[in-house]
């Protein structure tokens, strides 16, 4: 896990979110990488547009799923951290 997350995360150059019609699943496509975006991942990734802060993304997700903010915050920061380490998110 990286020490810090980007303030306003966005997909790295060469990375995009794509709906795979054959497999009926969201995938994150990057250089020689196909990562399945499961569960809330597509909703999180759609919001990684370089304008929203991590806090805003968490707020929006908590509202979207009418879920406890604390729980959502952990899931979001874990996922973002993992993707930063993989250079899929900057």
């Amino acid at each position, binding site marked *: 896990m990286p020490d810090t997350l980007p303030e306003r995360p966005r997909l790295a150059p060469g990375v995009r979110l*794509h709906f*795979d019609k054959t497999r009926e699943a969201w995938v994150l*496509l990057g*250089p*020689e990488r196909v990562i399945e975006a499961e569960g809330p991942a597509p909703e999180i990734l759609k919001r990684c547009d370089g304008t929203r802060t991590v806090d805003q993304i968490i707020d929006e997700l908590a509202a979207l799923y009418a879920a406890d903010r604390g729980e959502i915050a952990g899931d979001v920061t874990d996922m973002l951290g993992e993707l930063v*380490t993989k*250079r899929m998110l900057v």
Partner: protein
Amino acid sequence: MTSVPAPLGLLAELTHRCPLGCPYCSNPLTLDDRADELDAATWARVFREAAGIGVLQVHLSGGEPASRRDLLEIAAAAHDAGLYTNLITSAIGLDATRLGRLKEAGLDHVQLSMQDVDADSADRIAGYRGAHARKLAFARTVTELGLALTINAVIHRANIERVAAMVETAAALGAGRVEIAHTQYYGWALRNRDALMPTREQVDRAMHEMESIRARYHGRLVIDMVVPDYYARRPKPCMGGWARRSLNVTPSGRALPCHAAESIPGLEFWSVREHSLAEIWLQSPAFRAFRGTEWMQEPCRSCAMREVDFGGCRCQAMALVGDAAATDPACELSPHHARIQQLAEHDAAQARMEYAYRGRAISATPAR
């Protein structure tokens, strides 16, 4: 028989023409003629069919794809088909204007080959004076345009002492990803094996060096490795399994389960000129030949790893054992494993450094 999985990747070999002559090239010794190349409209159809059967990523390759004057039209068609579009290039033939247009057409990623960090050595390997300097300039153009860049370095005897420097150079050029790919011996690389093979000591040192450099760049640079399988104990899961994840279309339109598949005698390949990609994927004899595990012999057949490494590489089994259905001799469980090690050690001990440059006149001395 379980259902056939959908492919993820398409390697589109747009042309076999290339200004470089790299001796490690995995293209076949007999290259397709320009006159036989598929036209852009056919490629556009192939891309739509590929997306239709589940392909997500297309790799525009060759030869040098920029040798095609209609590369822009072809790349745009790949993007319009909804495919993640990767350009695999030597940089020769691409300037900032042309690359900028490719970006506007939807190009997602550029993979640039680099032969060495030492310019003289790099140019000698490529068989093209001035290639290295042009590659450095091109890499900067790629990142200035905001395109994602991978540097691919194929490793062999002439550059293996500088793997760490290659990763450092890639990072300095702004690459997000680097591939350190030990030479895989197919096509021209097999022809040149005795001029390319490093010693076991060199390989061990390079692998060790890569461990520390990986740790140093963790989270900053994605580093992918292609392992030197002549010195390995277990085979690579070649292509992620035959006809399981990806397919290849040659410049003239033959659809192959992997780029070296034509080295296996007796396989029947279908052409995209006559068949849809869906038909080819599901029904063509070459794709069905080694799909799954039914074709396996012992020791693969009862091996716990059979759906992990899929018995290794069919083309390598053919080239070294003479039987495409045999266990890849890179596996220590193969009865021929000692032979691959002997071949590696024998070739590594050769003083020969003269290359049979890809696509150029072949000298009279055959490779073993």
